[in-house]
């Protein structure tokens, strides 16, 4: 099987056209960048359908495209848990219950909400940890892209890294958040059109869904599972031994479905920022719901290719084989190898461009989130407080350059991981899982205090690292996978299970400690201060006069019903 391919003039032309448009959007938007609000918050003026698509597109980076395809091959249909039980309920919760506080409080970022609701130290902790995390995520996107260009096209690693960094830098520098959001929408359409032919060809080749199921039952049996283990999502979750993910339904439900997903989708400024850029409160609340519709069907584009790849590998006559890495399959290669297998010159260029687009949207999303947090929550709060808005606009622009430079550094650091996904999950577990406890208590319990929130967050993060340091997944060979405290108290059947439980412990520690410490400390903010920040002290949003299907609640119910139907179909 060839792992590198040569491109024709048409492939390069397609790539070039894409680059021209991406940069052109930045260039066109440049003249609207008059204030720091325009640059860092998109002037709060973007229609909901655009922010909705950007909401999911910014997440459709390397992590999702490469990681989900890899998981699709490794774990099969169970990977949809990241969507239907993971993302969707969290997105609904964000839209209905949390968005009113983010958007209504006039906070400019998630850390700033924490400052308004709690205190300075809570904001500082969140702002710094978030800044580090986004830079890492952006660096991983860059690394993955450059690695791909190197192995597939024979491009120089440093050159690929540089070119992608420069393109993202230019369009974010010129048009700020608006440019990133507009490009994310463009990238979203490109990713869909680029990957759809791949899925269609793959399914035709393997004989449709039946052919896929049949071949995957061979895969399952060969690996010592029930025949349906690769095509069912919940059916084999009653014991970690009966599904390739090595998890039990409770871990999925609590760890992934509740703690990790709510922590990610409801408190991660990367995605929340898109909703906060909407033109109205109704628009901000609809953003995650509009995004939820395409999100529910993304598994068809990113998980199914992984399942097809492993299914084809199991059929020797297919002429397709996943490359090996050491003594296991190189799962991260699923998408590129499939592209090379099915696409002739022409769509090949389109597919590769779509892949690049996905990496760039991931990168740009992180860079814009980093910009805002750095400028407002770190620079304006701790370094230089009283300057004109012009000054902060300039700082925002310069931060773009700084952010991209540091991500390049992170890209070089991110080299030694087999499954990029697992590594990011680990970081999310450490930082995000306790965060959701803080927000939950902050938004819905007016008695929670700044000291409680801060100490709760810190101990949640500590609990996460402690748990990770004392446990290990089966067959762990490096300390990065766990057990670095010397003694392994518990061994999990898989890394995934360990990650879910790390999150559960972190969340519980943060929740319990925030409650205890809040009750022990004095409440420093009056009810008047907390108006618009806490559920019980905020007047309900009135939405008479809006047609029912444009209101968030009915939309949320429809999203929920569709997700349940999908889950039942692939039970």
């Amino acid at each position, binding site marked *: 099987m060839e792992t590198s391919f040569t491109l024709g003039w048409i492939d390069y032309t397609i790539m070039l056209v894409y680059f021209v448009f991406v940069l052109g959007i930045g260039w066109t938007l440049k003249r*609207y960048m008059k204030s720091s609000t325009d640059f860092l918050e998109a002037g709060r003026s973007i*229609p909901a359908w655009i922010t909705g698509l950007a909401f999911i597109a910014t997440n459709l980076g390397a992590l999702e495209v490469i990681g989900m395809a890899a998981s699709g091959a490794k774990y099969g249909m169970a990977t949809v848990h990241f969507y239907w039980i993971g993302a969707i309920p969290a997105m609904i919760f964000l839209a209905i219950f949390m968005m009113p506080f983010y958007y209504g409080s006039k906070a400019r970022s998630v850390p700033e909400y924490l400052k308004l609701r709690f205190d300075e130290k809570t904001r500082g902790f969140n702002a710094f940890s978030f800044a580090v995390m986004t830079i890492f995520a952006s660096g991983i996107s860059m690394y993955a892209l450059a690695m791909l260009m190197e192995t597939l096209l024979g491009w120089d690693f440093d050159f690929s890294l540089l070119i992608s960094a420069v393109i993202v830098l230019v369009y974010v520098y010129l048009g700020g958040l608006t440019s990133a959001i507009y490009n994310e929408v*463009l990238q979203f359409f490109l990713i869909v059109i680029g990957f759809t032919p791949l899925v269609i060809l793959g399914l*035709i080749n393997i004989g449709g869904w039946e052919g896929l199921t049949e071949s995957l039952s061979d895969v399952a049996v060969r690996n010592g599972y029930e025949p349906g283990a690769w095509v069912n999502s919940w059916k084999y979750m009653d014991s970690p031994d009966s599904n390739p993910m090595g998890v039990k339904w409770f871990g999925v439900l609590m760890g992934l479905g509740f703690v990790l997903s709510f922590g990610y989708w409801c408190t991660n400024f990367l995605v929340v920022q898109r909703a906060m850029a909407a033109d109205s409160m109704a628009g901000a609340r609809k953003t995650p719901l509009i995004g939820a519709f395409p999100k529910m069907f993304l598994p068809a584009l990113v998980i199914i290719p992984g399942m097809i790849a492993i299914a084809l590998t199991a059929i020797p006559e297919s002429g397709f084989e996943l490359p090996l890495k050491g003594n296991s399959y190189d799962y991260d290669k699923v998408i590129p190898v499939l592209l090379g297998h099915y696409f002739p010159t022409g769509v090949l260029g389109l597919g590769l461009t779509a892949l690049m687009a996905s990496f760039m949207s991931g990168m740009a999303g992180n860079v814009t989130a980093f910009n805002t947090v750095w400028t407002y929550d770190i620079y304006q709060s701790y370094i230089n407080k009283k300057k004109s808005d012009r000054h902060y606009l300039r700082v925002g622009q310069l931060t773009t350059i700084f952010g991209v430079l540091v991500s390049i550094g992170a890209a070089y650091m991110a080299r030694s991981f087999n499954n990029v996904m697992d590594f990011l999950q680990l970081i999310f577990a450490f930082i995000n899982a306790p965060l959701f406890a803080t927000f939950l208590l902050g938004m819905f319990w007016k008695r929670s205090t700044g000291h409680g929130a801060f100490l709760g967050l810190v101990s949640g993060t500590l609990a996460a690292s402690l748990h990770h340091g004392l446990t290990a997944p089966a067959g762990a060979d490096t300390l990065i996978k766990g057990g670095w405290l010397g003694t392994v108290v518990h061994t999990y059947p898989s890394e995934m299970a360990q990650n879910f439980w790390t999150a559960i412990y972190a969340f519980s520690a943060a929740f319990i400690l925030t409650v205890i410490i809040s009750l022990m400390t004095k409440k420093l903010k009056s009810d008047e201060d907390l108006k618009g920040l806490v559920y019980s002290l905020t007047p309900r949003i009135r939405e008479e006069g809006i047609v029912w299907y444009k209101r968030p609640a009915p939309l949320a119910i429809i999203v929920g019903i569709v997700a349940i139907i999908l889950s039942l179909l692939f039970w």
Partner: protein
Amino acid sequence: MGLDIKVPIGLMFTILGLLLTIFGLATAGNTEMYHRSLDININLWTGIAMLLIGVFMLATSKIKPAKKE
């Protein structure tokens, strides 16, 4: 914001769609090239789909010229 996102997306899809459609027509019958895509002229089909999406975007962007505000 003064830029309707449908215009650049529509334009890009139209251009790429035309490119792929023409390329697909020009390479029709090249069995060696389309062997890997299961003898389907995937360039032509993808091109047509992109062209349709592009034209649709451009058409709807004209009906609703730059929103108020």
